């Protein structure tokens, strides 16, 4: 038991990912421990989304290993990863635009037994009361902020052990960004481990326990989120001061 506790929930070891001939990820290693919020920050095109998509099983690493809950999972395929307890809230939300809010949430629970759906939905509505009000609305007609909430709620419906969020604050007004980060903290407090990719480094570092900084396919810095927030290089490059 105590042995198992020391194992990280997610362990990525030296993965290389290619898009055809493009070498997008050039040997990345990272770990996420149960209960943590870990953030991955970096400039546009650094390879953050590629990293998350690879962990989620949408892309296959050409080299290197990924272990989830102690089991090797590289090349498992995204649809099976959900059943193992990993959920990705993808970049650009990618909610099902033509389905209702409720249907979107139901599909989030696709990997779970049907009897659970109602209860999970109640829990999601506690995090996002707005979604309950709009239950019957077609998702494509929601506002950007509501769509982000729906994407997060949908990811939560599979009751993941690890939830990965790819730029949840993208395109949202500052007040909404605050709200989204508040919810991330709440979800974590309720027991979900979180791996967060963000452009908004300030917010991400303030909410996270640990952080990794990525540049052009490599990790260039890692450490305690507070330390990185006060690091001169990070401040210059990502915090604009």
């Amino acid at each position: 038991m105590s042995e198992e506790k020391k194992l990280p929930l997610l362990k990525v070891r030296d993965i290389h990912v290619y898009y055809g001939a493009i070498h997008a990820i050039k040997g990345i290693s990272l770990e996420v421990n149960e209960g943590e919020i870990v953030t991955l920050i970096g400039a546009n095109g650094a390879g953050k989304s590629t990293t998350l998509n690879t962990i989620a099983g949408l892309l296959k690493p050409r080299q290197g290993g990924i272990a989830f809950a102690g089991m090797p999972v590289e090349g498992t395929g995204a649809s099976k990863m959900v059943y193992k307890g990993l959920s990705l809230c993808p970049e650009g939300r990618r909610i099902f635009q033509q389905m209702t809010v409720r249907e979107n949430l139901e599909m989030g629970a696709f990997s779970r037994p049907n009897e659970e759906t109602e209860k999970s939905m109640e829990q999601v509505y506690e995090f996002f009361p707005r979604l309950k009000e709009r239950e019957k609305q077609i998702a494509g007609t929601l506002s950007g902020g509501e769509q982000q909430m729906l994407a997060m709620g949908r990811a939560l419906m599979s009751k993941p052990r690890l939830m990965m969020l790819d730029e949840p604050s993208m395109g949202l007004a500052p007040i909404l960004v605050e709200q989204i980060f508040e919810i991330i903290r709440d979800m974590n407090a309720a027991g979900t481990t979180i791996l967060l990719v963000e452009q908004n480094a300030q917010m991400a570092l303030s909410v996270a326990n640990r952080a990794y900084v990525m540049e052009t396919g490599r990790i260039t810095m890692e450490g305690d989120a507070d330390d990185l927030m006060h690091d001169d290089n990070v401040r210059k490059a990502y915090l604009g001061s």
Partner: protein
Amino acid sequence: MIFLDHLINGLSLGSIYAIIALGYTMVYGIAKMLNFAHGDVIMIGAYIAFCGLQYWGIPPVLAILLAMVFCTLLGVTIEGFAYRPLRQATSLAVLITAIGMSYLLQNIALMIWGANPKSFPTTFINGSNIRIGQLNISSATLITIVANIVIMVTLTLFTSKAKLGKAMRCVSEDRGAAELMGINVNRTISLTFAIGSALAAVAGVLLCSSYPILQPTTGSMPGIKAFTAAVFGGIGSIPGAMLGGILLGVIEIFGKAYISTELGDAIVFAVLIIVLLVKPAGLLGKPMREKV
């Protein structure tokens, strides 16, 4: 009365187009490909039912079920062997494969059943005519229209209520996001082909019950018309396929009856072109909106 007769005939022919169009539109919506071999699956289904009725002497209901089961397996096999390996290929490569598959099925039928047209046994379905006032509706016509309604209602319920039906809509909208939900995309596409092909078998039997000449090319023209119907109604849309199929059948019969027998098909396509000029996504097709 003659007008009503034409209308009933149009509805009946249109129902057959609609059932075929459903296969086209579901496969297009979910697998994002035009399965041009779909019309030939209809022909194979009709041959299987023909063999059951003519050679093996099995009851009509069993013959139809046999054709449905056979076509389901055929559709799933075609998808698995011919189309699945091309999932990442260009749509042109997939299209050419589908056309090749269409000819392959026709040639196989030619090998097994020969080029001479078979006359499809219709007595089983044409038992008696139904009279409503002066209207005389053949039971084949009636069964066709009823079958169409039943299929339409069932499919609509399936895609709006059943878990797997909703999964199909997810795959249709965003394959990657569907996978992230835990939906097995390959299996969902197989299911789509299974449903479409089973419907093709039904359509084959209904078609040959009304137009009882069966040969290896029997599926081609109805296939193309049904594809047109699917585009007409808005490709990817289930109610669109229904509406498109029925309108196409009615327009075709009226065109032939009141304008010109020879130009019947041309009239159908002229109407299609006009509709697409006004509504490029088809009658019920939704132009995709994206919100960022």
